[in-house]
């Protein structure tokens, strides 16, 4: 059964391949692609300042709003 299935698959693959090669379709095929990678680094502050990163929680901490509240609670 497995052999029979693989034979059909093989024939199908071969037929598709023959179709592509016989019509010179292979030479005509053009593929578009995306390429990805890393370019380097930028400073976090500049990204936030120029509104490329919205980081409310970190800003709150570093504006010391939460930190001050936390310390004041501890002091109480």
């Amino acid at each position: 059964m497995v052999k029979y299935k693989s034979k059909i698959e093989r024939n199908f693959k071969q037929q598709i391949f023959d179709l592509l090669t016989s019509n010179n379709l292979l030479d005509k095929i053009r593929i578009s692609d995306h390429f990805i990678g890393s370019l380097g680094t930028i400073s976090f502050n500049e990204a936030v300042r120029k509104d490329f990163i919205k980081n409310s929680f970190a800003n709150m901490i570093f504006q010391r709003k939460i930190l001050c509240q936390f310390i004041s609670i501890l002091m109480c």
Partner: protein
Amino acid sequence: MPIYKHSDVLGFAEFRIPLKSKTKLIKFFNKLQAYVFNRVGFLLFKQNTLEVKFQLLTEDSIGVKSCSNLKEELEFIDINKSLDLTRKNIINLAKNQLFNQFDSFYFQEYEYLPAHHTWVGQILLQDIKIKNLLKNKKIFICGSPSNKRLGPFHHSLECSNSIKFNKNKKYFD
């Protein structure tokens, strides 16, 4: 941040929390923090730097040929023999735009990963033999190829939206 060539969008640069670290624990913590930030938009600890990642587009630059050893296998080829140069030029373009936009941009060249998303099919669909086979329902297409062109952004959302808004159109019998 979009990257332009004249007025065309070629792709984008995005800023991510750097994951690299020598210590496994810090690496794990950075990954966790990046995950939370990417999903929710909250950053637990302020970073000093952000990593600049890019995704850029090269259109119709890759061809295929059959492998000499295995007749059923195909391999990608560079049709103009200048794909690396084209990609380097595009990276330089992105680099210059980032230098113009950010004073703190520090360029470090890393190897890129090609063919992250690929798209092909217009030429196959225009071929008469393939057209007839499709018309006579001898072959069915599952996914690519299609008449769409690969844009600078990921095509999944666009494709899913076009299917969603054309509910009456039959894609499969």
